């Protein structure tokens, strides 16, 4: 793979990695959400720095055009991250529903007791 492309990919993935680390340090991102982001950036970082490992993996799994390996890695992790969001959204929606229901019932109860 061309050196120039590898350097650019390495710099970008390093920036992403340190950005996410900084976000969890400042507690702006929950650790449970950072893990997948840190994984994808570190895998891409290692693949781009390590001499020829990218070409060898690409060749091993039958990809003729080695830079496409980065797309494969990125898309794979992005799908995982999106899936994770769907799970979290489902959980939040359920919790939100229960909260609204219980709160509305409580409000009704309060109204009843204050008007009696």
């Amino acid at each position: 793979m061309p050196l120039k492309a590898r350097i650019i990919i390495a710099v970008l993935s390093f920036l992403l990695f340190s950005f996410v680390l900084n976000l969890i340090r400042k507690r702006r991102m929950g650790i449970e959400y950072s893990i997948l982001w840190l994984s994808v950036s570190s895998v891409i970082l290692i693949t781009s720095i390590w001499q020829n490992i990218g070409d060898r993996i690409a060749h091993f799994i039958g990809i003729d055009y080695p830079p496409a390996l980065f797309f494969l890695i990125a898309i794979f992790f992005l799908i995982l991250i999106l899936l994770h969001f769907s799970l979290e959204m489902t959980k939040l929606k359920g919790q939100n529903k229960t909260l609204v229901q219980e709160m509305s019932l409580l409000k009704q109860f309060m109204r009843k007791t204050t008007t009696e």
Partner: protein
Amino acid sequence: MGGKETKKRCLVIIPAYNEEMRIGDVIAAARAVDRVDEVVVIDDCSSDHTAEIARKAGATVVSLVVNLGYGAALHTGYKYSYDHGYDVTVQIDGDGQHDPRYIQSLIEALESKRCDVVVGSRFLGSMRKYDAPLFRRVGMRFFSFLIYLFTKNEITDPTSGYQALNRNVIELFARGNLYPSDYPDADVIILLNNMGFKIMEIPVVMYENKTGQSMHSGLKPLYYVVKMLLSIFTVLFGKHRTFLRRTHPCL
């Protein structure tokens, strides 16, 4: 429950969203039914005067602070019923489609036939023909067929929101998270049947929705059918059995 010969307490749940024109009549008719002890309206965050009119008509009103949808509103009613210890719960739509005179028949059927759920069907018996669009009729037939396939129970009107439920079913839904948020249908019937609850139908009269605004328009029917098939899949192969054994050791 049971054992004692005390009179069973009956609650009527009316989920309502912007029904100020019709809710008053439905409540008055429901309250006039002999066996009904309380009528509770679950106001699904209406933007009109549904809540005030319902209160004036003598109903208890639980106003959801956020619009949650039909199923979640009903679910709230089940929680109310469970918290207040009702033995029988009847659910009826607030849009005037269901004739409240059948509340009594639903309650009586639930008690005399010793079943857990009684569904009011618009297709059973010699009732007036209910005219629905072709796609809708085909869909209903299809889901009735699926229910028969998986439960060997003939339910002609699985979409009917006019039902009576006993305390065991109410407890199951009130305490768990099994009840769907949007439109409960064949999935709920198959779920209950597979858990050993007894379901039967009696004929009721239903009127067409006067405003004509149906929940099924545009691409929604397709979404609805796919969603319902997936929901039936989760009911048939889901993990709720183990969940239930934890929360309901008796089942």
